[in-house]
């Protein structure tokens, strides 16, 4: 009897409890629901720390607005062509002639078109492309860009072999090769001329090997469906309307076949060498005959980091000036290099306000952020108590360490060092807010204001950033430090030009100290400004660039000229450390050097394109660029090289499949840091339900144990 009563009580209790649980669960759910739905509203605000006129990018759920993904429809099967690259450099005096041979091999059973997006030096004057089919060579011709594309597409349709070389950025080019038969190999041979970099007594040449994945800011524009060439993973956005053409697909980590580069160099420096080094690749010296050094890569390398070659004369043998000339199509061209007198670091440098800006986006993950941290520590250690400073960090957003620049006191410096030690790389690369925070636009500053900008420059919106630098520079000076294995050299050099500063590269941790010391030398020495060349006598050569950039310690003046240099000589003048400075030169004769006209044309094109940023109309600039480019045979934003075979080779009944050639991820990069991770998709609902169940059960058992008998 008692037992039955207890059982009935138990059942009743369970019934009540369940009913109560469900009822309160539903009521709670509804109440909470209303509450949380309401609360979820204001959560959208408060995510933009800077109110600069910078478009907020789409907040991407792959953890931050990073690289956008897209893929190209292969159109149904077939295999992508395999690629090998052979590079040959002829370096002599101040210039280099480089031949890049790309061999596309079709391993599949179907006819294919290969599209390859690759980098070249940002100042390369590309003037030749040949299509190699077996032993036959078809010479490419320079055409207006749209016309070249039409010619290529017609040949592609008609089954004829053809190749098209076009420029996407000064340092990003695309080769397209149509109608490669099954098992066939087709070569594209590209040639360019470039001037060497001479800085602080050392010559160097850089050969980029891979277009690093770029961060694409902005909102996706248009349909996002497939566009033209490139087959990029990114979709075009309002800020980077050609994103799909500068983001070549990445090779799958497991893919068995990689993209490799072999290289051979003939170096005729014109002086005995005290230094010859390749800091990032193993090289082999094949012999030195009559002042010509033959060098090659010890073995073919994965195309995943920039090749750099440095060489230098013995101390005291440094050139103070050089003139190279060429007679081309009835005109005289010259390249003039002048080393201004070396003032050297001043013993008591003027107090400065130094703004250190560091990129902590996902692409800087790994070795790059370590190099950046090392460089920042050195820069902070260099400050004196009279200086002021601040640190700006940016990835998806920009953050400043101090609200405004502070004195370089011991306390502030130790705070900054701790901050630097804690920097981690992750997220997007929203560079504009950081630039806006670092460049305040003031025209008058009490102290010399220097902004040191450390980044790999992996962004797709370079032009907009240059415009921002130009508008907000004021009295500040911007110095770029390119970090990592494949920095965007176009961004580094052009940002420094618009920022009236200088640029340097740090390729691995071992270089940090040496490169930063070279930069401090420039930051602490008086700069040579207002540089002008005035010709004595009747001679009025056409000089490019028109406005000569400021020169920092160890940098030479380098200009290209067209026309007679006359006999009266030239007066080089400028200002340094508050004093006027001038020097008379008599440039005459000079070593004959083929390709100087190309350097002149390339400099003129770069200068004309920059004039767009200074307010000249795009149409006007385009007309002038076209005239120079077609006259000298240069590839530019408005002209391409196209080569077409005469006879068709693909049978009319066979289709053609287009494939983008996959590229490597730059050395030291982590795909998950750049492309983000897959979204999180679990709710705590099961946990809540289980916990809730257990707790109520425990409560009920306790109740039985204590209150049941009562």
């Amino acid at each position, binding site marked *: 009897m008692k037992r039955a009563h207890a059982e009935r009580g138990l059942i009743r209790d369970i019934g009540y409890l369940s009913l109560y649980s469900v009822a309160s669960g539903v009521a709670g759910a509804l109440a909470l629901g209303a509450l949380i739905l309401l609360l979820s509203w204001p959560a959208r605000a408060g995510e933009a720390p800077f109110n600069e006129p910078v478009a907020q990018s789409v907040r991407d759920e792959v953890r931050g607005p990073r690289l956008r993904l897209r893929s190209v429809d292969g159109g149904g099967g077939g295999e992508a062509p395999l690629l090998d690259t052979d590079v040959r450099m002829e370096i002599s005096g101040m210039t280099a002639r480089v031949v890049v041979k790309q061999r596309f091999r079709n391993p599949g059973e179907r006819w294919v078109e290969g599209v390859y997006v690759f980098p070249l030096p940002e100042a390369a004057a590309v003037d030749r492309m040949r299509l190699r089919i077996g032993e036959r060579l078809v010479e490419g011709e320079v055409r207006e860009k749209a016309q070249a594309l039409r010619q290529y597409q017609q040949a592609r349709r008609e089954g004829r072999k053809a190749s098209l070389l076009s420029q996407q950025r000064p340092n990003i080019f695309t080769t397209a090769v149509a109608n490669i038969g099954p098992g066939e190999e087709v070569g594209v041979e590209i040639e360019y001329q470039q001037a060497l970099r001479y800085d602080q007594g050392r010559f160097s040449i850089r050969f980029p090997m891979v277009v690093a994945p770029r961060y694409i800011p902005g909102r996706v524009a248009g349909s996002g469906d497939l566009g033209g060439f490139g087959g990029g993973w990114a979709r075009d956005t309002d800020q980077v309307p050609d994103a799909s053409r500068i983001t070549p697909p990445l090779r799958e980590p497991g893919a068995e076949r990689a993209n490799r580069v072999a290289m051979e160099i003939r170096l005729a420096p014109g002086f005995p060498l005290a230094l010859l080094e390749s800091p990032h690749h193993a090289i082999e010296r094949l012999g030195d005959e009559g002042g010509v050094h033959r060098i090659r890569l010890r073995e073919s390398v994965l195309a995943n980091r920039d090749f750099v070659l440095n060489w230098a004369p013995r101390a005291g043998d440094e050139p103070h000036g050089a003139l190279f000339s060429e007679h081309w199509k009835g005109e005289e061209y010259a390249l003039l290099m002048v080393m201004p007198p070396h003032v050297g670091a001043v013993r008591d440098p003027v107090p400065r306000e130094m703004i250190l800006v560091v990129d902590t986006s996902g692409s800087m993950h790994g070795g790059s952020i370590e190099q950046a941290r090392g460089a920042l520590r050195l820069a902070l250690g260099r400050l004196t108590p009279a200086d002021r400073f601040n640190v700006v960090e940016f990835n998806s957003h920009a953050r400043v360490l101090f609200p405004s620049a502070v004195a370089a006191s011991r306390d502030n410096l130790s705070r900054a060092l701790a901050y630097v030690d804690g920097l981690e790389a992750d997220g997007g690369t929203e560079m504009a807010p950081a630039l806006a925070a670092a460049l305040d636009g003031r025209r008058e500053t009490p102290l010399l204001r220097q902004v040191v900008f450390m980044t790999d420059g992996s962004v797709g919106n370079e032009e907009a950033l240059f415009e921002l630098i130009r508008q907000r520079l004021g009295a500040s000076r911007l110095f770029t430090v390119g970090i990592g294995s494949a920095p965007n050299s176009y961004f580094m050099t052009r940002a420094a030009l618009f920022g009236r500063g200088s640029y340097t590269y740090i390729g691995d941790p071992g270089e940090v100290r040496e490169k930063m010391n070279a930069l401090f030398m420039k930051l602490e020495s008086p700069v040579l400004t207002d540089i002008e060349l005035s010709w004595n006598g009747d001679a009025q050569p056409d000089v490019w660039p028109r406005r000569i950039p400021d020169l920092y310690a160890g940098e030479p003046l380098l200009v290209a000229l067209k026309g007679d240099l006359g006999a009266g000589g030239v007066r080089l003048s400028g200002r340094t450390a508050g004093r006027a400075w001038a020097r008379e030169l008599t440039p005459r004769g000079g070593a004959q050097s083929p390709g100087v006209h190309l350097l002149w044309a390339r400099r003129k094109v770069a200068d004309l394109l920059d004039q767009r940023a200074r307010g000249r109309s795009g149409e006007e600039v385009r007309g002038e660029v076209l005239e120079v480019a077609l006259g000298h045979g240069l590839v530019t934003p408005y002209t391409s090289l196209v080569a077409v075979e005469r006879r068709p080779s693909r049978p009319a009944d066979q289709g053609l499949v287009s494939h983008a050639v996959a590229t490597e991820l730059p050395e030291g990069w982590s795909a998950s840091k750049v492309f983000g991770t*897959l979204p999180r998709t679990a709710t705590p609902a099961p946990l809540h339900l289980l916990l809730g169940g257990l707790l109520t059960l425990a409560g009920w058992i306790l109740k039985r144990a204590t209150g049941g008998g009562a």
Partner: protein
Amino acid sequence: MKRWLVWVLILLGLSQLGQGIYIEAKAWLAQQLLERAWERARVGEARPLPWPWADTWPVARLRVDRLGIRQVVLAGASGRTLAFGPGHLFASAPPGSAGNSAISGHRDTHFRFLRDLRVGDRIELERRDGARVRYAVYRRGVVHETDSAPLRRQGAQLTLITCYPFDALSPGGSDRFVVEARRIAL
């Protein structure tokens, strides 16, 4: 004496139950509201917000007839969006386009059905323009959250992502279950 403890335990338990039920209820209820917003999307409204303060909107409808699944897919895959329905990753190609469209959903609500999908299953995606695109499952598997290879796969495909394992109690694991389906002709 222990009476207060009993009630604390029971109240705590109920609030936990309430939260669990709330998450499931919200997931279910939101889909009902979303159906209406989807109808507005179909008649051409660019961003039909399902409720006035929403920060997402329907972009497609997902159907798996074999499993009786019909879900409205939302724009974006932030945690807030996923509470209401599966979300389309902005970073991927638009749903039903020629590229790789990726959709993710909660493993314990909307995308629980992923574990029942088999290779060869048909998935239908209804675009906002009314067109219906069909896909056939060709691969299913578990990857680490840092492995973005499925997102970079070329070709017209649908990539469905959810957390793994399905029955894990707590959220926050680092494995993902990915179903890949290739576009097929109607």
